């Protein structure tokens, strides 16, 4: 069928294109989100000087919390060494969204926290499931990403961050 031919062509075209984009680095999609203080922030122009880690998480996601709590313990060292900023994007919807600040402050996290209650940024970033972590260089290009969390993954992430510093 003609339509199917179209499908496959677009499929191939977009795969090819995304690979090209990988070589030439991909920019962040633009979505307006709010932080825990109600301040609006556009994801494409977050305005941090150094590299940024974007970590998608939710209050109901155990591996996400494990990952972020692990990074929390070493975050000040990471910051000092590489100038990294971690942005924890909560995909909690209206059911659990209000518990995000309770958790974040209760755990004394020092990350930037953004709320994505209807999954707009999650969708735009092609996130299938949480946790999903992206590393963005200082020019706003996505240079590394990792799905899932197993203890030790944070060290691989930190190596990737340090590589950016060496550039």
């Amino acid at each position, binding site marked *: 069928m003609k339509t199917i031919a179209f499908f496959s062509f677009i499929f191939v075209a977009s795969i090819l294109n995304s690979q090209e984009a990988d070589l030439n680095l991909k920019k962040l999609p633009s979505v307006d989100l709010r932080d825990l203080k109600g301040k609006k922030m556009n994801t494409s122009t977050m305005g941090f000087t150094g590299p940024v880690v974007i970590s998608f998480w939710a209050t*109901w996601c155990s591996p996400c919390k494990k990952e972020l709590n692990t990074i929390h313990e070493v975050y000040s060292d990471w910051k000092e060494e590489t100038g990294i900023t971690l942005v924890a994007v909560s995909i909690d*919807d209206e059911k659990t969204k209000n518990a995000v600040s309770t958790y974040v402050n*209760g755990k004394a996290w020092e990350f930037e926290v953004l709320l994505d209650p209807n999954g707009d940024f999650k969708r735009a970033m*092609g996130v299938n499931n949480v946790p999903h972590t992206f590393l963005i260089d200082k020019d706003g290009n996505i240079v590394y990403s990792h799905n899932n969390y197993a203890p030790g993954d944070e060290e691989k992430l930190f190596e990737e961050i340090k590589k950016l510093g060496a550039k």
Partner: protein
Amino acid sequence: MPKTIFLFFLLCLSFATFSQDYTNGGTFTGNIESTFQYLNNDSIIAANQPAQKGLINSYMNVFYTNKNFKAGMRIESYLPRIQGYPNRFDGTGIGMRYIGYTNKLVDITLGSFYEQFGAGLSLRAYEDRALGYDNLLDGIRLIVNPYSGVRLKGVYGYQRLSFQQGRIIHGEGIVRGVDAEINFKEAFDSLLSDDWDFGLGASFVSKFQADNDNELILPQNVGAYGGRFNARYKKINLNGEYILKEQDPSNDNSKIYNFGHAAIFNLSYSKKGFGVLLSGKSVDNMSYRSDRTKDLQDVFINFLPALNKTHTYNLVATLYPYATQPLGEVAYQAEVLYSFKKGTLVGGKYGTTVNFNFSTTYRPTQRTSGINPLDSTGVTYRTRPFEMSDSLYWRDININVTKKFNKKLSFIFSYFNINVNNDVAKISNDASGIIKAHIGVVEGSYKINKKHAIRAELQGLFVERKNGQTNDKGDWATILVEYTVSPHWSFGFMNQYNYGHPNPNLRVHYPIITFGYVKEATRFMIYYGRQRAGLFCVGGVCRFVPASNGLTLSFTQSF
């Protein structure tokens, strides 16, 4: 054919981006997920092999942005759908597609879009692919930002109801809505100090569905409207929303002509090491769908969040979940999180976190005195927001303590006490009245070295006896062991054992082994074993998944 035109358009774009300089070529993002099942017969758990033996669900999203232009689509495929997925999904085709234009003033989308007004009590179009939930709107959306801190939205469209023979099937009614919100801090920069934040919003939503009823005169246009606010002073946050719904006789409410309402508020305070949240919700006659004859999770225009914690341990999460009763409930929730400081007696070297959560839901008071439910008004009762009866629907008291003993070893201890009224919020065919369950979980994690780690869970679920009889399926135990090698490999084994089933022949083990490989944004998973029948829930929205026995392969990729 509009679809072909759209495809052609997207195709042109692909070419255009090839021929351009790459720095101006725009960006593609997206993801793919595919899940394959091969299932066996297993009579003891009532699992059946489907005639096709193999089942497969797949989808791929592609989003394209280039400066002010955006376009995207999702191709879905069900050949046929995997077990437990909504039963009207079949074929391969386009499940979502849009084009749009964005600049500082406007953001316009034609085609499919997801949207939420405020807390979603009046309108929320969203998707959860794992659940098969997708009530996107197909039509047009315009967002205008006329002034800093002010945002206006307008939406017009038909909802996605299902996906058959590779095509979107729309709900019968059309949905229209406008929403306005103002953030005073952004609008009047100098007015508020950093200690304050204040915002207001209002929305109006309306649906039209032709009256095809022979007996009743049904309202064809049904509105839902209301307002919301959010306020913050230093570390105190307060927000709330109230929505009133007009008369909407439907299958859900047995065609009554009552108005409906939904109200919700959240009050929270948090500082370093301590957070507390109090929430309240009142819902009455608030099922709002773009087709008054539909049920289950079909074509809901609005979203009524359940006020309880989303649990993650499998027994408590899947045996006794709770979803909002759209016909009416009054619910409250309290959540406290406290971290004992490092170096204190309780805190130890690494700190200790205690999390307490309480949620409860009751039937609202419905006054019927002086009301003739058979009279021509069609109003069958009166109620007021937050007025509740003593009929319990749900109660959950849970506490968990997270403690790290040293660099390698940490534990989480949890206890849950759940009461769920199975006559109202039906979650089991084997239970009656209020199911009272106690659940205890111990989870331990041990980091063997830089890359190797092992994690184990022990869970026990105990159901209180009712009139000397076992209620529901009785007691359960779960053991789970997971071994991970960062950053690629994971191996797991889980067994759920229904050792307390009243029928000794049905004291069944549900063993399952899992294997996973992750490389950056690519993930392969293999599962083999028995899957218990139960409710699979994401964020308070649930679907029933039948028991199965067999092999599941899944693949996900983001790009």
